[in-house]
């Protein structure tokens, strides 16, 4: 049974990784073909680094993803704390509205924000670009933070917080030492989800961006529309590398933190 599970997992991983590895291999291909490997070259990487549009849209993407995910994590965690202590009716109403950007297709969120921004653009000095993109990203990120933090409250025994105070913790300290560690996995996964969604988002950005602020996915989209170019493969390879490094570092830090937690910690 255990062996079967491993084989199954390996097959799924193969399905997930083979397309990416093919992209990587062909980023070093001499010819433009994406099926016949004719020789090794680094030309596509050189071209990539000389492509000003790609570099500037990459910078834009990172700025927006970082800003949007940090703001959403703060906004969303505070919201979750607040919503959790509300009475049933307002809580249900707010959660239903919060669910909307998730239940709604991205394209509907994108289109609805486009309508709102057009309304303001026609009447005030709002331009489609960085500001509209950032607002849009925060709007679709926050619900994911709230939804990943809220269940942590439900799984937590509410008496823990009271017990900590009975044992001499101040409310703030009890919150920091008892509640926060309980909801932290939710906060972290909410942040990571926001960040990935922001980096990955094409659809909503596509409807809310202007000519002044392109994100990387939008640039990639226009590249794939025009012609198949190995520059995209080179870009994929670099993104993949960065992702691997980031996740490895994160994993290492987490296991270190886990060891630390085992060796100590008090109220």
């Amino acid at each position, binding site marked *: 049974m255990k062996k079967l599970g491993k084989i199954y997992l390996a097959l799924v991983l193969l399905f997930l990784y083979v397309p990416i590895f093919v992209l990587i291999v062909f980023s070093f291909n001499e010819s433009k073909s994406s*099926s016949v490997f004719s020789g090794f070259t680094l030309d596509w990487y050189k071209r990539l680094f000389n492509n000003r549009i790609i570099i500037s849209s990459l910078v834009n993407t990172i700025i927006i993803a970082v800003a949007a995910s940090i703001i959403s994590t703060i906004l969303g965690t505070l919201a979750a704390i607040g919503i959790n202590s509300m009475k049933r009716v307002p809580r249900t109403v707010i959660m239903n509205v919060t669910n909307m950007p998730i*239940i709604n297709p991205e394209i*509907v969120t994108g289109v609805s924000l486009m309508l709102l921004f057009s309304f303001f653009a026609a009447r005030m000095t709002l331009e489609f670009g960085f500001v509209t993109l950032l607002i849009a990203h925060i709007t679709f990120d926050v619900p994911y933070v*709230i939804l990943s933090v809220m269940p942590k409250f439900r799984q937590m025994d509410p008496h823990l917080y009271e017990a900590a105070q009975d044992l001499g913790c101040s409310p703030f300290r009890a919150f920091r030492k008892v509640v926060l560690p309980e909801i932290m996995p939710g906060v972290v996964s909410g942040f990571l989800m926001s960040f990935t969604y922001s980096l990955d988002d094409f659809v909503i950005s596509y409807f809310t961006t202007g000519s002044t602020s392109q994100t990387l996915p939008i640039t990639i989209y226009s590249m794939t529309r025009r012609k198949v170019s190995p520059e995209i493969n080179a870009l*994929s390879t670099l993104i993949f590398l960065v992702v691997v490094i980031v996740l490895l570092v994160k994993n290492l830090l987490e296991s270190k933190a886990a060891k630390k937690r085992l060796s100590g910690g008090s109220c």
Partner: protein
Amino acid sequence: MKLKYFSAPYLVWMIVFILVPLLMIAYFAFTTDGGDFTIRNVSDVGQYANIFVRSIWLSLIATAICLVIAYPVAFILSRMDKHKQGTMLMIVMLPMWMNFLLRTYAWMTLLGNNGIINNMLGAVGLGPVRMINTSGAVVLGMVYNYLPFMILPLYSVMVKIDKSLLEAASDLGCSSASTLFRVVVPLTMPGITSGITMVFVPAISTFIISRMLGGGSNLLIGDLIEMQFLGNAYNPHLGAAISLVLMVIILVIMTVMNQFDPDDQVLI
């Protein structure tokens, strides 16, 4: 200070950027360019019934495939040694960190008529098989892109299931199949419903996957909406009406889904 006031900044944000824009969609759907009330836009949506049927069908298939593939993956992950779990989860989720256009682009080059798969088939005397620009390619693209969105919520529910609960079930005479269907599945229902939501919604509304892998012959609802707002067929009123109908379809499906959520049922 009361805890509930913590949510005030978000509430303002929610009203301005979630509620108001959605109301604007409703407003656009029921008005003409001049601002007069009309139901013409909504009734015009009926002309595109075939596109709606195709979108619902393809995304349902993709969601079902995702669930079938992801459920065992999440279960295997959740039963691994604790220290291995983190690493393994990271490996499974890593492709999600790649941009989704790149992942779709990867399949474009794989499935192409001169792509690697057809080259390999040709080497053993088969093919070429037409894979790109088919509805099968669209479903494949959906499964590939959204599979991690199914694995993650399932895993996060399964990891909470105590091992002793499964042992108790088998001690009390449950076969592995009945343990699965009477213990694991009911306990993971919240994960299943949220996984289905997270796969079905982007799948039914996508316009990239259909455009890159489906060619021109596999238009989905997303393509239709995009064409009304940014394409040649510029008509935001019709686009809003289509969006409204799409929202209703998804609401209906989600309401059906919620019937399976055991939140307010008594667990045996």
